[in-house]
């Protein structure tokens, strides 16, 4: 299939394809980080994760409308404000959901799956009632929609770069929060041994709520970022849920590093296959490979070997 192209053309395409893989990678990382915290660290199967992302996207939409109406001069920078709002709104809803629903189900992980699925139905219909069944168009500041021309053929999309930067910064922030801060220690203590953590004076209910809220908040930021590359509609969130869970499970549920490694592996596989095959077959093959590897190695890529 590469007949008749010059070497420089091919080099450019490979460079662009590498970039495509990287930007898919950052999309996966963004999707999966919030879930890795909620599912990996807390064991809650949050099927409404996609809906939290879309809530972030709608928040961005509202923020952009507000800026257009009231602060048109600052429109270029609204996105940062929107991400903050998205985080706060989603975290607040997350905290509420944890309080009302999830905390009763910590010992029944499969039941969290059903309850959060119910939540996702309700959220979807709520979006439909509030924002209408149609997708909303989120207007982006012009500087975000362009591309940087590196060579004649190589254009790097700015929004792709931007998503990458967000993904990277959030991944680093989460890493420091979970592994380098006192709060992270508490979270891990609660995850590993709840009664013991309580015995040493950790408010485990508070930690749970904050952790769940954090995971939802990150989903919100992901949703905000996805307005740049995807659609914002009541049921857009469902498109992400299978991929997201596979990324987290494939990485080894309890390992954040594993999540990143698996996001990298899956995204590279998918984007390479997409280049050579049709989109549908690429997707099927990628999923099959992931499921196949999971069958051989159920604990995921980076599971801790624990002495039980």
């Amino acid at each position: 299939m590469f007949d008749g192209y010059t070497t420089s053309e091919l080099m450019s395409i490979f460079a662009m394809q590498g970039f495509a893989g990287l930007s898919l990678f950052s999309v996966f990382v963004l999707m999966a980080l919030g879930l890795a915290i909620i599912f990996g660290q807390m064991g809650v199967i949050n099927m409404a994760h996609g809906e939290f992302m879309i809530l972030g996207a709608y928040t961005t939409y509202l923020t952009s409308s507000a800026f257009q109406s009231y602060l048109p001069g600052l429109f270029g920078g609204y996105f940062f404000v929107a991400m903050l709002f998205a985080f706060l709104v989603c975290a607040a809803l997350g905290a509420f959901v944890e309080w009302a629903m999830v905390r009763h189900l910590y010992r029944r992980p499969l039941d969290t799956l059903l309850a959060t699925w119910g939540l996702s139905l309700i959220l979807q219909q709520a979006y439909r009632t509030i924002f209408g069944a149609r997708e909303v168009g989120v207007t982006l500041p012009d500087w975000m929609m362009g591309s940087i021309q590196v060579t004649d053929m190589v254009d790097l999309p700015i929004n792709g770069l931007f998503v990458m930067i967000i993904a990277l910064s959030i991944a680093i922030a989460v890493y420091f929060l979970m592994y380098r801060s006192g709060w992270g220690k508490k979270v891990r203590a609660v995850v590993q041994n709840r009664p013991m953590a309580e015995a040493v004076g950790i408010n485990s209910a508070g930690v749970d709520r904050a952790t769940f809220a954090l995971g939802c908040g990150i989903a919100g930021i992901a949703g905000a970022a996805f307005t740049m590359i995807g659609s914002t509609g009541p049921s857009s969130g469902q498109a992400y849920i299978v991929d997201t869970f596979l990324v987290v499970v494939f990485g080894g549920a309890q390992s954040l590093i594993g999540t990143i490694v698996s996001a990298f592996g899956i995204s590279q596989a998918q984007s390479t296959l997409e280049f050579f095959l049709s989109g549908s077959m690429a997707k099927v093959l990628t999923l099959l490979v992931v499921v196949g590897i999971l069958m051989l190695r159920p604990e995921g890529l980076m599971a801790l070997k624990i002495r039980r």
Partner: protein
Amino acid sequence: MKDSPVVKWFASREGLYYLALALLLVVVLPVMLDAFRLNMVGKYLTYAFVAIGLVMCWGKAGILSLGQGVFFGLGGYCMAMYLKLEASTPEATAIQSTPGIPDFMDWNQITALPWFWEPFNSFAFTLIAVIGVPVLLALIIGVAMFTRRVGGVYFAIITQAIAAILTILIIGQQGYTGGINGITDLRTLMGWDIRTDEAKTALYFVTVALLFVCLFAARLIQKRKLGRILVAMNTQENRVRFSGYDVAAFKIFVFCLAAAFAGIGGALFTLSVGFMSPSFIGIVASIEMVIFCALGGRLSILGAVYGALLVNAAKSGFSESFPELWPFAMGALFIGVVLAFPNGLAGLYQTYVMPLEERLFRRKPKTDGSQKAKATAPAQTPGERGKEYDPLIDQYSPEKS
């Protein structure tokens, strides 16, 4: 006659539950409803097959599959392939560029029937495939997963991924599968027009009959040691393993059983609705099937039947009067059942209705429940022990699920 075990069983409390269901499905509903509504009930009942399988697989053995739609769909597709071939006679498809093959193949420039369609010309093969294909896939998945001890949440997510893969595959290979439209416009079964009211009513009764076959099969398993081991496995997998059981084999068995039930349900669905499409294979359909089971009571096979009936009836009813509210109601149902009634309808029945029954039964001391005490004749003992084991009276411990 009076002493025949069958009569005795029907007079027992458990027997009465089955009688009540039979009465409802065979007499009350057909009398009350017109052919159209009865056909809808028949469609709901095809979901009950999946729900019974889920009770065995999830409620009893603790294996939550989010891919039951896959097996339902495969059973349905097998039946649909047979019916489609019957409908695609060279005369009926004369306007096609290749007459005699299903219309969607013609649209996709396929000029000969693909090899894997050929056997579906045979009705006998189709009947075997309806159960065989889902069971075979379940066997492959089961062997791969359970021998490697994949369980719980991981199993749920992997089955979900399998549902996603199959959906994309079926939609993508539309020349062979009918794509997103599915296999439509099915008319006759061995020359018998399945679209008429009479046929639909007849199919309804076939569905009810097969449903009871599956119910009794599930009940038999529950009553046997096999059923006890399934429950035991759910709570103390290691103890079962170190009591000398090959846990994986039992899990594979119950997963295949659930797949077989789902396949039967799917085939009946195709017959009663008249087409099959990939939307039954997907994740949404699969999760909805879990809620039928959860609402009815995840430990009760009878509850599962009522669950499937009620959720679907509510869905139709609600969406006729308040279409916008339906998703809210459905969502609330999920959350409510999980939070407030983890045992579903069967659990509620057990808590509120059974005490009343208890009083009724106590006035008549000559029912079988009174033989609880160790019988003096040792020959009696083996049979009588465990007779109190009722599907509805199972203890449920949510934290172990």
